[in-house]
């Protein structure tokens, strides 16, 4: 190879790779700008009211994001509340209790299941879980909790099968493998030395976990939880099947509701007016911003965790 052709390849490699890097940045910025631009008609005509208005009325062409935001937050919260403790439990179990022979298969299994497409979870939720809930869990909740003062409000109304609670549960099942994979990794990142000295002092496995492992990885676990939250917020297909698609805010968790992503999936192709389309894109923009915030918070926590750790 002559020097000339060599420097030519050098520059091509350099240029091409730099171009790819640039592409990523350009696309990210273009993404935000294009969505913001397309959402502008809705934001400019409804203003901040867009965020606080519950109405989603194509007849009068007034749109508000509140019902979708409410559904998104509540379903994601249910998902996190249900799956977080389970993932911690699994993490504890795999790191301290289970014999090594079992750890790897269970871990691989859970990681494998993280790959199942969300569409499949939705399909299962609609055909298996929702009908089952309509005849068992929901009538039970309504019958036994429905008459209490505050909790009753949360579990009232007819058993629809689909609804906010069902969506939250399907989401919980869906993010469980994702969250568990993170948590299990974190548990294994705890230095052996620390744990072994604790055991040497006569601590039980639970005490080691509670006072050594968990404090050590606390911040990273929360960082992981925020990553999972970002996923739950933006999840579309698993939710669309089972949330009920109703632009309403009701106190009952059994009532049908909608989420941002479900509204978009349902209405984007068939929106009737330009304002309707623009409002849907505005919803998408809000979703983009909130998942971005979840990412930033998660990153900040992870960074702080690394910084505060003795080297």
């Amino acid at each position: 190879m002559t020097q000339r052709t060599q420097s030519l390849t050098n520059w091509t490699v350099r240029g091409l790779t730099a171009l790819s890097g640039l592409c990523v940045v350009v696309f990210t910025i273009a993404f935000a700008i294009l969505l913001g631009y397309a959402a502008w008609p809705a934001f400019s005509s409804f203003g901040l009211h867009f965020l606080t208005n519950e109405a989603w009325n194509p007849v009068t062409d007034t749109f508000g994001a509140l019902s979708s935001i409410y559904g998104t937050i509540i379903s994601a919260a249910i998902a996190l509340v249900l799956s977080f403790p389970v993932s911690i439990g699994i993490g504890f179990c795999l790191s301290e209790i289970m014999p090594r022979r079992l750890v790897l298969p269970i871990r691989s299994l859970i990681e494998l299941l993280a790959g199942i497409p969300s569409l499949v979870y939705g399909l299962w939720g609609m055909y298996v879980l929702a009908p089952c809930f309509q005849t068992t869990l929901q009538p039970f909740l309504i019958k036994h909790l429905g008459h209490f003062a505050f909790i009753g409000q949360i579990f009232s109304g007819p058993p629809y099968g689909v609804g906010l609670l069902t969506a939250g549960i399907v989401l919980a099942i869906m993010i469980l493998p994702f969250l568990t994979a993170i948590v299990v990794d974190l548990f294994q990142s705890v230095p052996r030395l620390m744990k072994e000295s604790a055991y040497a002092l006569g601590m039980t496995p639970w005490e080691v976990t509670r006072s050594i492992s968990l404090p050590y990885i606390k911040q990273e676990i929360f960082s992981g939880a925020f990553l999972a939250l970002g996923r739950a917020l933006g999840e579309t297909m698993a939710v669309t099947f089972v949330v009920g698609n109703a632009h309403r805010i009701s106190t009952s968790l059994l009532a049908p509701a909608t989420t941002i992503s479900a509204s978009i999936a349902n209405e984007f192709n068939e929106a009737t007016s330009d304002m309707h389309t623009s409002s849907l894109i505005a919803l998408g923009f809000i979703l983009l911003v909130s998942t971005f915030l979840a990412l930033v918070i998660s990153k900040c926590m992870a960074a702080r965790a690394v910084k505060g750790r003795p080297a």
Partner: protein
Amino acid sequence: MRSFIKRAAAVLASAVLLCCLHANATEEISGAGATFPYPVYAKWAEAYKQQTGIGLNYQSIGSGGGIKQIKANTVTFGASDKPLTTDELKDGDLIQWPMIIGGVVPVINVKGIAPGQMVLDGQTLADIYLGEAKYWDDPSIVKINPKLKLPHQPIVQVYRSDGSGTNFLFTYYLTSVNSKFGQKVGANASVQWPAGIGAKGNEGVAGMTMHTDGAIGYVEYAYAVQNKLSFVQMVNKAGKTVRPETATFEAAVANADWAKAPGYYLILTNQPGDKSWPITGASFILMHTKPVDAKASKEALDFFAWAYQNGNDAAKALDYVPLPASVVAQVKDSWKQIDLK
């Protein structure tokens, strides 16, 4: 390893290229819109493909979608059960015509009630969808159905969550018979429902009604028949109880005067006549008068001409009502407005 990957990539790349080359040879008409006529369009498309080799890809994304996509020029034709007004047509350089007529039928899923056993009137139906009649043994329902044994079970209203012409026909009808419904909800392809759960498309509503106990929904008749859903009889404007069937749809169409309706803007709900089915409607086709791709538009028109001529049997088999011959002649005449150069 690396050479294997290279080879695999090369094979795949050439396969994709081949596909692209091959693809340009096949012809296809692209359309999207109403789910209401989807069964019959799909049947026509199948037959047309067999006869001519030209495929019609019709995606039933809802009437709102049909209107939106034709305006955005993403399809060759749009389909909608909600006619556009002449102003809207002019704004978008569009032309519309009716293609097929059918009926919207309320369907229920209540244990122990056979198809056609339940009778409802517009007032009660609107009350149900307003969430005011909450249980199946609501006095207003019992009053019309004195002989039925109705359970004390919550009513689950199922509605269309997407923009749809079926929605339009249904809400237009409910608005015309129940003023409160008009005030609270209104008539449109997509409205804000005060109660119930949303499902996507006629397919979705039928599906959701089928697997939700105590549900009521509304679908195009073909969907009700194909899925053996428990349909409801309706009390029409003349005060008579009618079954949903071709004869009652035809009766509703009989007194329509298409010639006098500019842009065929005609809504067939709540028509007078003893035998008229109250929620009858036409499904419209929308096309650009100055199409981007004239060849594609020509192909689409050929398909529609073929459908008018050869599609009536398939339509009747699915319980749609074909357009009267006189109207077809008018429609074909109006196609001259499309610039095919």
